[in-house]
Every structure is written in C-alpha cells, then in structure tokens.
C-alpha cells in the first residue's frame, strides 16, 4: 500500500469552496471527465449534514507501465478507455467542513485508488484579535484542504481473476500464482503498480486544484450564473456543441441509445 498526501489552502470562504466542489465539472482542466450524475442525496435529520453520492465517468487509460505487468488480454484491448468513479461527500455547513471520498469502481484488484479530502473553514477569530489594530484586510476567508490518496494493488492475490466473488477464490489464487505470477514477485508487481498510481496522482491533484480555482474565480466574479456560463463554453470547447454524450456512446459498449440524436 502507498500513500500520497497534500495540504493546500484556498483563498475563498468555505461556502464558496464547497459549492465549487459540486460545480467543478466541467472546467478547462477536466476534459477527461465525460459525465457526472447524482445517485443519492439527503440531509441527515439528526446532524443536518448533507450527504451526496455521485458517479463520474472519466476517460482513462491503463498506464502502459501497468499493462506490461498484466497477463495478456487483461486491461488491454477490451477496456473501453473509460472508468467509473464513485464520489461520496458529507457537508456540515454549521461546523464549516466537508469530507469527500472518491474511488475507482473497476479494476480494483489491479489498483484501487481512494482519494479522501477534508475541507475546513479556517478559523479567523485569532487573526481578527491579533490584527485588530490593522482592520483593513482582516476578513480574508480561507479554506484548508487535506488530500490523502491510498493506493492498493491486490494483483496476484486471487481476486483479480475472480469475476464474481465466489467461494472458490483459493483455487483461483493457486491458478494465478502457478501461471503468470510464479516467476515474478507478487509484492514487487504490486509495489510497481502502486508507484505508477502515485506518480499519476501527483499530476491529477495539481490539475484538480487548478480546476477548482477557475470555478472559484468564476463564482467570485459572476456568481453561480458566471460558473454556468463558463461551463457552457468549456463544454463546447471540449466536445463541440453536441455535448459529450455522443462520445460516450460511440466509445461505450452499450448500444441501447443509438436512436438518440440530441
């Protein structure tokens, strides 16, 4: 297992940052994100916290470094170049924090990537006291975010080849070891795959920050309307006026919506 951690502070208030989080796609740094859907959302009546579950469909390729380590046909030509991400968030507006978790839903045996973020309103009370004399720019609201990403490869542990979870996992484990993995160190392959994930994530975390900052800037200058207008332009720039869904079903395996001409 590998970890990646990053701390960052946005120069925006917590309400703005949490709104931008829900509004962050599309932005100019998110061309790989094809669709976003809300599958569950409710306010917990006890805590008043807002719970949201979304699915994002992203364009993604299995990195070639990882492909080389896989048995033939696995993660290769049959993969559609798209992957589903499950995202859960909890917002506590009163306490001023938001917790997010995103994970890949496929290929988790090869590499499971779980990104957790904790956004928190920065207490400015102390600042206010300390700078009471210089009242001019005391209201500089900020929001901190701590990002932790966990990488875990279970390749060679039998789960990879088990399409459906069955009680025969021991047998499959044996088979996979005897076959492909016998000559290689399972732990070594896992470590290599995890490290490839880490290096790709460093870039992705930077990009997602840049995307958030653009959305936040649009919020500041034009409010929600400004963000929506920016989105329309991003969407056209990325996919043309037809929107991204044409691409989705051209690449996807599902053919059930061919008659949709929108």
């Amino acid at each position: 297992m590998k970890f990646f951690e990053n701390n960052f502070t946005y120069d925006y208030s917590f309400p703005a940052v949490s709104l931008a989080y829900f509004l962050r796609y599309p932005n100019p740094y998110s061309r790989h994100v094809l669709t976003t859907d809300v599958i569950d959302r409710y306010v917990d009546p006890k805590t008043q916290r807002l719970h949201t579950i979304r699915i994002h469909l992203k364009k993604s390729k299995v990195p070639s470094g990882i492909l080389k380590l896989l048995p033939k046909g696995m993660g290769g030509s049959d993969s559609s170049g798209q992957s589903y991400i499950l995202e859960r968030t909890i917002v506590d507006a009163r306490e001023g924090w938001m917790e997010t978790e995103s994970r890949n839903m496929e290929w988790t045996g090869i590499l499971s990537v779980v990104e957790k973020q904790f956004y928190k309103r920065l207490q400015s009370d102390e600042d206010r006291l300390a700078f009471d004399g210089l009242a001019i720019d005391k209201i500089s609201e900020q929001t901190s975010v701590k990002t932790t990403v966990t990488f875990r490869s279970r390749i060679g542990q039998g789960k990879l080849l088990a399409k459906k979870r069955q009680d025969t996992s021991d047998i499959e484990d044996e088979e996979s070891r005897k076959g492909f993995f016998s000559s290689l160190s399972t732990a070594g392959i896992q470590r290599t795959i995890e490290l490839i994930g880490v290096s790709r994530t460093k870039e992705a975390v930077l990009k997602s920050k840049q995307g958030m900052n653009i959305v936040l800037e649009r919020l500041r200058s034009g409010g929600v309307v400004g963000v929506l207008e920016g989105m329309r332009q991003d969407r056209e720039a990325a996919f043309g006026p037809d929107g991204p869904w044409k691409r989705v079903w051209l690449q996807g395996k599902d053919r059930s919506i061919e008659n949709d001409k929108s």
Partner: protein
Amino acid sequence: MAASIAPECNDIKEKYDTCFLKWYSEKYLRGNTSSNDCEALFKDYKGCLNKVLKERGIDTMVEDARKSGSSETDAEFLRKS
C-alpha cells in the same frame, strides 16, 4: 452543467442541478437545512437515471463499491460525528 451519463436524462438533470445549486447556496449554506425544495425534481431525475444504470449494469457495480468502501469509511465518517 456536467452532462448525464444518460443523454435522455440531461434535461431533467439540468433542472434538478439548477434547483440544487439555488437551494444549496441560498438555503442550506445559510442554515436553512431542513427544507427540501428539489425533492420532486430529484425523484424524476433518479427515475430516469436508474433505468439506464440498470440497463448498463452500473447499478450492481455501485452497490459493490458502496459496500466495499463502507467498512472503513463509514466507521471513519461516524467517528467525526
């Protein structure tokens, strides 16, 4: 607004998203947490979406992912509360 995975749900999704953003920024974030202005729209949107998720087998994938994450994450989430 971000597009839906199901093109036929884009219209209703856009209506729901717009409603949510308004509710979230004007009510929820200002402490009016108990209102649920967008429930009817969300129900329609979910009805449209669930059909497609089922057709493509995404619903079972989501089930699995929610379960696989729950052991560690729910405990962590609870600890915060």
